[in-house]
């Protein structure tokens, strides 16, 4: 199943469809009139929760929230991380040396500690602000990766050739090194989608997640905890969605790796 990207792609497509179309066909995720903790039925495909809200509706809206958060967070991390990484890797200037130091420093603080401190300070946040915080704390790993790749590529024959032909350094960096250094970063970012989704869920679990009533999958899992015995579907439904999302991101990331870096396999 890891040979082809189709498994991951199909899963991802299904989730995106859930996120895009789901909220249109599902009932209001905040409506509290159906009756509490109803098991799955034709009226409520995945049952209702402790506040009589439709679980399918929350799952669909939650897909939008969780996937947007993960996407935005990863793009932010990728942009900051690769910019910092390429400049730090280019070497020579004070800027690149200090960026290298800052990256090391940021890596020295465990991300979960920084996130917990930040979120404990700010409280629960709207989804987009939350995504920005996840993204802003996620860049150092990518920066380190890109920096390493940049260092390696500086010694590559085609780059040396370009330099010998008299191309100015910024142009070499932009045209020759960046595209090559970006490949591992993009792979890491795809895998980072899974991390971001899990991180959102984990922080929600600690009560440091996204502001209610925005239904995020992590929040749904957190709230299900007290009803595990009475209504196990409240836990199983969002967990299944989470696993589907993170595995599809992982599978796509691996497929991408095989496509972009066939030599590592």
């Amino acid at each position: 199943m890891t040979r082809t990207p189709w498994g991951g792609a199909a899963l991802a497509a299904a989730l995106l469809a859930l996120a895009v179309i789901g909220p249109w066909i599902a009932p209001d995720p905040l409506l509290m009139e159906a009756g509490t903790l109803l098991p799955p039925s034709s009226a409520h495909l995945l049952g209702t929760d402790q506040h009589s809200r439709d679980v399918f509706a929350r799952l669909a809206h939650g897909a939008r929230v969780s996937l947007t958060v993960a996407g935005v967070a990863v793009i932010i991390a990728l942009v900051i991380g690769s910019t910092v990484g390429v400049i730090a890797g280019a070497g020579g200037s004070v800027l690149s040396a200090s960026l290298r130091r800052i990256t090391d420093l940021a890596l020295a603080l465990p991300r979960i500690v920084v996130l917990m401190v930040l979120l404990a300070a700010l409280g629960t946040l709207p989804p987009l602000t939350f995504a920005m915080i996840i993204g802003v704390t996620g860049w150092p790993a990518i920066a380190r990766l890109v920096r390493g790749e940049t260092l390696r590529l500086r010694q590559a024959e085609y780059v040396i050739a370009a330099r010998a032909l008299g191309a100015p350094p910024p142009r070499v960096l932009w045209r020759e090194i960046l595209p090559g250094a970006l490949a591992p970063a993009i792979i890491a970012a795809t895998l980072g989608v899974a991390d971001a989704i899990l991180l959102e869920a984990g922080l929600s679990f600690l009560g440091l997640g996204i502001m209610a009533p925005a239904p995020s999958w992590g929040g749904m899992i957190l709230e299900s905890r007290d009803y595990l015995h009475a209504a196990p579907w409240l836990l199983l439904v969002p967990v299944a969605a989470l696993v589907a999302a993170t595995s599809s991101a992982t599978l796509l990331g691996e497929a991408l790796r095989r496509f972009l870096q066939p030599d590592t396999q």
Partner: protein
Amino acid sequence: MTGWLARRSVDAVVSAAAAILLLVALVHVMPGDPLAVILGDRPADAATVARLRERYGIDRSLPQALGDFARGAVRGDLGIALSEQRPVTTVLREHVGPTLLLGSLTLLINFTVGLALGLWWALHPGTMRSRIVSAATVVGYALPTFAIGMVLVWIFAVELGWLPVAGSSDPLLPADAPLSQAVVDRLEHLVLPLTTMVMATIAVPIRQQRSAARAVAAQPWVRAARARGLSPVVVAWRHCWRPALTPIVTLLGLWLPMLVSGAVLVESVFAWPGLGTLLAEATVNRDVPLVIGAGVLLVIAVQLGSLLADVLYRVVDPAQRQP
């Protein structure tokens, strides 16, 4: 090598110190009223508030706070934890043991069972069983740690009653119980949290080891060995093991932060009395000295981990020894 080691160590110390000061500054500017922890819902008059602020050093400017922290840290004094009313160092000492126990056992299993599975997988590509391992690693990596924990507790502790629900020891076991009983009790309490930690993290070493081993297996000398008729297991043992260690050592350096974040969630699910639970509560309570204290410990652990990884890296892969 010694020159390099000295440089690298200085580097680690500088990074750690900078990270800790950054953390102190970050926590200092956090909003929130630390006295809320001490006073609860009780109203207090101005004299009391002033007295408590002075005692716990709340009203200091950032430079003052940094200075006081540095001076105290040199003496091994990290201040008084507000939520415990006792020295931070005492509180940390009480909670570090359970986390180390859980973390080191997880590490041990990951780097024995995990590596063995990865190697096995690399040597048996395309079989049904390797497909199962592959799928399991994808799902294992995708499962949220705490959800694994919740489901395990539900099945094995509540429904079946085979294992305890929470905690790291049975409070009903007398303090003077024989050692063997205490060990069995500790192991019983370890099963579920450890399984959770391992399930959530083992996918990474398995996959890493597999790709490393396969890269090595593609090398000409390995193919030559196979051609000489050596069995795959022997080839794996003699030729693939050592070169494939390199990426694993890299992984080891990145491992501690992963264990830390895993620990925060797993400890919270199992009411495991470790640093993770402590840190989570201290953060939420805005217990500034305790957050910083726990942060210091983690920063140092991470730096030590990456230092160790770099050293091992050079030992395993002599090619790295060029400057």
